[in-house]
């Protein structure tokens, strides 16, 4: 006796530069499974329907940050977007907004990678040369000091926040949520002495000041980093520095 398999329709962006001038869509009827996520559906398409479909993925468990895409217009990790939350409606899968498309669902993230490097995402010490970290020279950090920066260290570089940010969508020079959150993570780390080095970049006109606190970055973040908070707090710190330097100009060398 034939059993009717439930299916769900996925409409996926296709872009093959060698054959298309602009992105198009292609629809597939994928078997519906209660436990499946959108990534499973994409892999089923690639395995059984259309081997030419290109997309990034890796861990399938929400920690590598590779599988970010737009699912029905919302930036999501496709390994965390369950088919059952959309069934029986159609699921639209598009590449992350605000990035150039290399192919199908794969976006060019060079801009983001460059920005991550530029904010100096590592502990900077004034005495790095004379007193390197090692046996007998350890940093002590109390649990509450870890608390100060911990949430900002949870970023998995999935770029959902960049896809959600309308400012980045309009102004590609904007440093962006994740990069600023990472800078804030180091600025708040009691072991770090590099805040001033980062600030000349982070607090520039293309840094925090482009942000208008739309807040969507923090809404879509799968790791609850709250980059919006990192940005507003950096604005406050910079503004304090600015007014202090004007009203109390002594001793700021």
């Amino acid at each position: 006796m034939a059993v009717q398999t439930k299916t769900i329709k996925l409409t996926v962006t296709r872009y093959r530069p060698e054959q298309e001038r602009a992105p198009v869509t292609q629809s597939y009827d994928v078997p519906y499974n209660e436990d499946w996520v959108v990534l499973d559906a994409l892999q089923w398409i690639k395995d059984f329907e259309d081997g030419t479909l290109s997309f990034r993925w890796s861990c399938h468990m929400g920690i590598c940050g590779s599988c970010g895409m737009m699912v029905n217009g919302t930036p999501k990790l496709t390994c965390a977007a369950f088919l059952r939350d959309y069934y029986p409606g159609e699921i639209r899968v598009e590449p992350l907004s605000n990035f150039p498309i290399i192919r199908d669902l794969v976006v060019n993230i060079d801009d983001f990678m460059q920005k991550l490097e530029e904010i100096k995402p590592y502990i900077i010490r004034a005495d790095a040369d004379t007193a390197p970290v090692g046996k007998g020279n350890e940093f002590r950090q109390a649990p509450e000091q870890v608390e100060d920066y911990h949430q900002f260290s949870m970023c998995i570089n999935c770029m959902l926040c960049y896809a959600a940010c309308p400012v980045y969508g309009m102004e590609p020079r904007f440093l962006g949520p994740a990069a600023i959150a990472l800078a804030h993570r180091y600025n708040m780390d009691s072991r770090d002495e590099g805040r001033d080095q980062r600030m000349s970049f982070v607090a520039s006109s293309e840094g925090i000041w482009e942000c208008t606190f739309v807040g969507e970055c923090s809404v879509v973040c799968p790791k609850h980093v709250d980059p919006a908070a990192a940005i507003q707090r950096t604005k406050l710190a910079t503004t304090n520095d600015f007014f202090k330097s004007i009203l109390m100009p002594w001793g700021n060398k």
Partner: protein
Amino acid sequence: MRYKIDTIEPFWWGLFMAGAGVIGMLLPIHILAQGIMPGVGAVTPDTMAFRIVNFLTGPLAPLIKLYLFVLISLPLFHWAHRFRYFLFDLGLHGGRMALATLCYGAAVVGTIIAAIVLFSV
């Protein structure tokens, strides 16, 4: 400053935040007391009018005028900063300097007018 940045944005943002505080904390009761209650009869317009003139002419007038100056000026700077970025959000991108000059300039002009009006009332 211990580090250099390529902008005086913190200055405008500081005024923006001060304006946000004035608007959030002080404006509601003023709008209620001066704008809504007389109109619905919760307080008679004559009484309110008499009180306002009293405030502007009584012994505490200088203090009250200073308060009103802050009440009027800071929201203008809040508007200027926010509106400038609101126009960016709507897609307006050319002439950033011109836009900033127009918005902050309007707030400065409004502030000067407020000072003149309050001083001479």
